[in-house]
């Protein structure tokens, strides 16, 4: 314990210095700003591309005139109870016709609309028309008013046909249309599979970016220190383990901070966009993809599981990056060092892409247990219900054991290689060095 404390003395100083320098680095700051801006822009973009036009809700409709030319009596006053935005509407029968309104724009002032219901006798179709003042653009609130009036008219038709209240409730109940192939219909998994694939794919991309960025930062920080011939100066004051742990923690805070900043940017953007437009379309789109809390275990436990897997997985990959960085001594080796970690990151990403496609619970369990793959697969497979909490717990234990072993290995390798100069060590040389250090320790 005392030895470990001695080996880690100064970690705090290394951590703060590395973090501060990362924050002062212009390219890092630019990356951070770009990512936060991307998160902020994503909500309005999603709203825009979902077809929901941005419009002001307040005072957009003040007065509703109705002109019912059908035979069905409609209680237009009920509109006020159908949407909070309609609560204060002035609703009155029009004294002018739709044609009058069209010909003379002055008949409809700002915030006024005319609802015209009629039967087109040429085609036998009933029409529900919403007529706006000239120069007024149709917004979300008009669409909702149109839906509300259509619903009232439907209700009036059914009541006129003699439907009881109960029958009315059944007939007016919500429904959803779906198109399925025969096999999809038989398996009844279509929506779930697509949603699972989407959630696994999206999550894997986030994890891949996180790991690639972290590994690159760690490798570059370690090689920079060795290439700058600074190591000797530092080793008078701190142990090699403190140097590598300080860096790993600093990069973790920076990268996770970047993710949190993006999430906060997204939340702020969602709140601000909501003032001007219906930002709920973002979640509606997600729900349309089938990502609902009914289908998935989206709860605080799932969030905790994801965070723990991210931390353990980050630890595993960053310690590997530390070992790879220690094998290099010049910035020329940076690319090849990065590549070896990227290969591992990509392996996890590919496994994540395959695991859902395989549609096998066995594959889901196996990939959730393998340490390098677990960060990608386990949280999503738990959320999808393909692995249970017991598998998650075993995976945590396995990951923790592997992380500890890698950490001890990293300490040994980093200590042995910190003064290493020359070309990057190959795996064979690295293994020989590890065995030599281990043998020496045993002899001692």
């Amino acid at each position: 314990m005392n030895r470990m404390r001695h080996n880690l003395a100064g970690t705090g100083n290394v951590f703060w210095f590395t973090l501060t320098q990362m924050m002062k680095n212009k390219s890092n700051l630019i990356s951070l700003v770009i990512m936060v801006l991307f998160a902020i822009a994503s909500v309005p973009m999603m709203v825009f591309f979902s077809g929901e036009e941005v419009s002001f809700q307040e005072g957009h409709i003040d007065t509703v005139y109705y002109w019912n030319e059908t035979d069905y009596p409609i209680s237009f006053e009920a509109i006020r109870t159908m949407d909070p935005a309609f609560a204060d509407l002035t609703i009155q029968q029009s004294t002018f016709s739709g044609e009058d309104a069209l010909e003379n724009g002055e008949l409809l002032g700002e915030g006024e609309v005319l609802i015209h219901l009629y039967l087109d006798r040429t085609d036998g179709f009933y029409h529900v028309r919403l007529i706006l003042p000239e120069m007024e653009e149709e917004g979300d609130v008009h669409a909702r008013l149109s839906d509300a009036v259509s619903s009232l008219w439907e209700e009036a038709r059914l009541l006129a046909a003699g439907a009881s209240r109960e029958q009315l409730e059944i007939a007016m109940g919500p429904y959803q249309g779906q198109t399925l192939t025969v096999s999809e219909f038989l398996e009844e998994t279509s929506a779930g599979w697509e949603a699972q694939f989407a959630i696994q794919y999206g999550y894997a991309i986030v994890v891949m970016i996180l790991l690639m960025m972290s590994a690159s930062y760690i490798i570059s920080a370690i090689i920079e220190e060795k290439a700058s011939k600074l190591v000797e100066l530092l080793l008078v004051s701190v142990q090699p383990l403190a140097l590598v742990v300080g860096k790993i923690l600093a990069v973790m805070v920076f990268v996770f901070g970047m993710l949190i900043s993006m999430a906060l940017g997204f939340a702020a953007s969602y709140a601000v966009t909501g003032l001007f437009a219906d930002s709920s379309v973002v979640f509606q789109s997600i729900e349309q993809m089938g990502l609902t809390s009914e289908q998935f275990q989206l709860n605080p436990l799932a969030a905790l599981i994801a965070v723990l897997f991210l931390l353990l997985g980050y630890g595993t990959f960053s310690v590997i990056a530390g070992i790879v960085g220690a094998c290099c001594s010049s910035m020329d080796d940076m690319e090849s060092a990065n590549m070896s970690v990227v290969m591992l990151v990509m392996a996890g990403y590919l496994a994540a892409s395959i695991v859902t496609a395989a549609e096998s619970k066995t594959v889901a369990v196996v990939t959730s247990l393998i340490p390098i793959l677990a960060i990608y697969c386990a949280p999503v497979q738990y959320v999808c219900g393909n692995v249970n909490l017991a598998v998650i717990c075993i995976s945590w234990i396995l990951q923790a054991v592997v992380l500890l072993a890698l950490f001890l290995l990293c300490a040994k390798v980093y200590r042995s290689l910190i003064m290493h100069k020359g070309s990057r060590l190959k795996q064979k040389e690295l293994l020989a060095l590890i065995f030599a250090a281990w043998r020496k320790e045993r002899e001692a």
Partner: protein
Amino acid sequence: MSFIVTNLSKKYGEKTALKHLDLEMKQPGVYALLGTNGAGKTTAIRMMLGMLSKDSGEVFWNGQPLSTETCNVGYLAEERGLYPNYSLMDQLVYFAQLRGVSKAEAKKRIQYWANRLEVEEYLHPGKNPDPDQTGGLRKRSARKKETKSKKADQLSKGNQQKIQLMTALISDPELLILDEPMSGLDPVNTDLFRAIIHEEIDKGKYLIMSSHQMATVEEFCTDIVLLNRSRVILQGHLNEIKKSYGRIHLSLKVEQDISANIHACGAVILSEKEYEYELKVSGESQANALLGSLIANGISVIRFDLREPSLHEIFVKKVGEDNESNET
């Protein structure tokens, strides 16, 4: 206080990097680690500081194994480095904090050493700028840029070396290890470094110094250890070593050719340039005999300097002898 190294050895595979190095400093002073290139000086220093694992041997400070916890060590490495893209001020504060110096104290010490080493303009550029010179209307961003601490890659090699010496001294170390401290410095900065080293000696510090500049070593050191091919070939108190060689070097300046007199008395001419001779004599009696013969022949002697061999001469002689014995 004491600094003791016992039986320090290191092998890389079959190659011996250092064999059985012992040294002992029971009082403040300067111990010189001398040796040919690749003799094992830097390896010895790295092993003393625990950067390299030892095959055998111990290093003690005050009877306890030397570590960051038992001894406040200042180290100027042979391979000097600084973070090229970080501000010098940030780096110095960081190095000081790693050595347990508080941020506020570190800033005070940086100020002192920056002033002493004449690098203040790189750490606090544009401090107290003259408004007439900087231009009162100059943009704030431009002024801020001017007052920002410089980065290492904006400094000359000599100035970088000064910053590195600052990092070694910033924690006010008890034990100071300087590996080739003067290499690459111009004469003005060499004098500045020499003055600072003298100050540290006067403060009662323990210094281990490795250098190829024998004159520098001779100026500071009380004890030496000479390494050749990873082995100790000479060790001890510098004055005693010199005394053991006797006064066998004679510098002579005359106004005419005296080669015949020199040969007659049996002395060996090492070099000769315009009647200035460097001779090797067997001892004081031979030198006196030569002087007597010159006076008897009416030759006027402008300079007659009989002395012990210099450290440089001892170094070359010992290494040459060792290499010869190895070859045979």
